[in-house]
C-alpha cells in the first residue's frame, strides 16, 4: 500500500456522526489506471467515504493523501472529476444549457475571473463528443433523459482532462440498456485513455465485467483486492450467499 505510486491513499480513516460510527479504520490505495468498484449495502458509508476523500467531509481521524498532497491542502482540483449521486435528482426546470453545465467543469483550470476562451469552447465540444452528445449543446439539461443527463455530467467531469473520475451510483433510476451503454463508455475511458475510475455501485454485473479492483465496505473495509481475488474470496461468497450469483469474467 505505497503512497508513492498511488494516486489516492486512504490512511486509517474513521468518521463519526452524532456519536454513530459511520466508518472505522479504512485504509486502502488507488493506483493510476484502476477501475475500482466500491460496493456495500445501503448505509454502509460508501458515499461518506467518497465525500471524505474529496475533502467535502472531514474525517474524525485518519488522513487522505491525494496525488501526494494532504486533502485539506490539495489544490490540483483540475485532476479530479466527480459525478455526485444527486446528479440523478436534477431539478428538471433548472435553466442551464448542456454547454453551460459542461463549462462548469473547466472552472478548476481557469484563473479569476475565469472567462471562457475559444479553446475552452473546443474542449466543451470534445467532451460532449466523447459522450456522444455534441448535437445537444444548446439544449436545456432538464429536457434530456436521465441517461443523457448522466452523460452530460460525465462530460463535465472529464472536460478538464482529470486523472481520476469519481462516480456515485451514476445510473440510479436509469433503464438497463442506457446503463449498459453508459458503463461501456466508462470502460473505454479507463482502457483507452487511462482514466482512473472510482465507482460506487450496487450492480455486480459491472464489477465482474469492467472493474479491475473491488472494495467492499460496511462501516469497515472487509475486502479490497483485485477483481480475481474478489471473485474467489470466500468472505465475499459468504456475504453474497443467497443474494447474488457471481459470474466473473472481464472484457
Amino acid at each position, binding site marked *: 500500500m505505497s503512497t508513492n505510486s498511488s494516486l489516492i491513499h486512504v490512511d486509517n480513516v474513521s468518521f463519526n456522526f452524532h456519536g454513530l460510527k459511520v466508518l472505522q479504520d479504512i485504509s486502502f490505495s488507488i493506483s493510476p489506471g484502476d477501475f475500482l468498484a466500491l460496493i456495500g449495502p445501503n448505509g454502509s458509508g460508501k458515499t461518506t467515504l467518497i465525500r471524505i476523500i474529496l475533502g*467535502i467531509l472531514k474525517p474524525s481521524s485518519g488522513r487522505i493523501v491525494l496525488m501526494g498532497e494532504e486533502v485539506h491542502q490539495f489544490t490540483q482540483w483540475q485532476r*479530479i472529476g466527480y459525478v*455526485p449521486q444527486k446528479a440523478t435528482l436534477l431539478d428538471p426546470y433548472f435553466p442551464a444549457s448542456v454547454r*453551460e453545465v459542461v463549462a462548469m467543469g473547466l472552472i478548476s483550470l481557469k484563473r479569476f*475571473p475565469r472567462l471562457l476562451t475559444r479553446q475552452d469552447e473546443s474542449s466543451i465540444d470534445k467532451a460532449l463528443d466523447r459522450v456522444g452528445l455534441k448535437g445537444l449543446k444548446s439544449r436545456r439539461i432538464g429536457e434530456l433523459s436521465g441517461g443523457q443527463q448522466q452523460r452530460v455530467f460525465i462530460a463535465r467531469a472529464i472536460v478538464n482532462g482529470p486523472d481520476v473520475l469519481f462516480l456515485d451510483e451514476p445510473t440510479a433510476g436509469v433503464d438497463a440498456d442506457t446503463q449498459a451503454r453508459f458503463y461501456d463508455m466508462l470502460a473505454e475511458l479507463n482502457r483507452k485513455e487511462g482514466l482512473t475510475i472510482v465507482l460506487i455501485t450496487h450492480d455486480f454485473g459491472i464489477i465482474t465485467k469492467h472493474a479491475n479492483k473491488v472494495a467492499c465496505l460496511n462501516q469497515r473495509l472487509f475486502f479490497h483486492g483485485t477483481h480475481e481475488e474478489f471473485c474467489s474470496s470466500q468472505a465475499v461468497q459468504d456475504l453474497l450467499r443467497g443474494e447474488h450469483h457471481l459470474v466473473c469474467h472481464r472484457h
Partner: protein
Amino acid sequence: MESLLSYAFMQRALLAGFLISITCAILGVFLVLRRDAMIGHGLAHVTFGGVALGLFLYLTPLLVALGVAVFSALGILKLKERAGLYGDTAIGIISSLGMALGIILVSLAGSFNVDLFGYLFGNILAIDPEEVWMALILALVVLITIVLFYQEFVFLTFDPESARTSGVQVRRLDKLMAILTAVTVVLGMKVVGILLVSALLVMPAAAALQVARSFKEALMISASVAGISAIAGLVIAFYFDWPASGTIVAVSGLFFLVLFQARSYRKPAQEELNERV
C-alpha cells in the same frame, strides 16, 4: 412622455428604479434557484429595524439599514452552518428580531414622521440626488461583482458539492452572495419599500424561469422583465396617480402570468431528443 421626463424627480426615479430593479432581478435568479428566495423578505424585515435605528439615532437611515442588513445576512448564514438550522428557520429568527428592534425603537421614539411610512411602502418618486448616486454606485458594485464571479456563482447554484470539488471557495462565495443580497434588498427598499422588496427579487426571476433555456437567457429575461416593469410601472403611476411601488410590482406580476402561460405552449422536447441520440 415628454412632459413626464421634464420633471427632475421622474428622471431620477426612472434612472434609479430601472437600475435597481435590474440588479434585484439578476441576483434574484440566483436566490430563487438556490431556494433562498425568502431571504429577501427576511432581510427586508430586518432593514425595518435598521431604518428605525437610523431615524432614532439621527443617522442616515439607508446607511444604517445597509449595515444591519449585511450583518443580518451573515448571521443567517452562520445560523444555518453552525446551528444546523434550516434556511427558512434562520431567516425567520433574524427577520423577527430585526422587526422587533424596529417596533421597540418606534415605540421609544414616540413616533417617527412620514419617513418610516416611505420606507415601508417605498417612495421612489421622492428619491433625492444623493440617494440616486448612492443607489447607482451600489447597484453597479453588485452587478460588477456578479459578472466577475459569474462562473463560480452559476456552479455553486447548480451543484454546490461538485463546485467544492472543483476548487470553488464555497464558504467565501456564500458570504459574498449574502452581502450582495443585503445590499440589493436595501436598494430595492428605496424603490418599492420594505413590504414589497422581495417581489423585485422573486417576481422577474420566477417569470424568467418559466421560459429560459439557459442560465444566461434566464438572467437576460429576468433583467428585461424587471427593467420594463420599473419603467412601465413608473409611467402608469405618473399618469394615473397610482402608488409607484405597487404598480411596478403589479406589472412584473403580469409578466409572470404571461410567461407562465407561454410555458404551457412550449413543445416537449424529450421524445425528439431520444430519437436523435
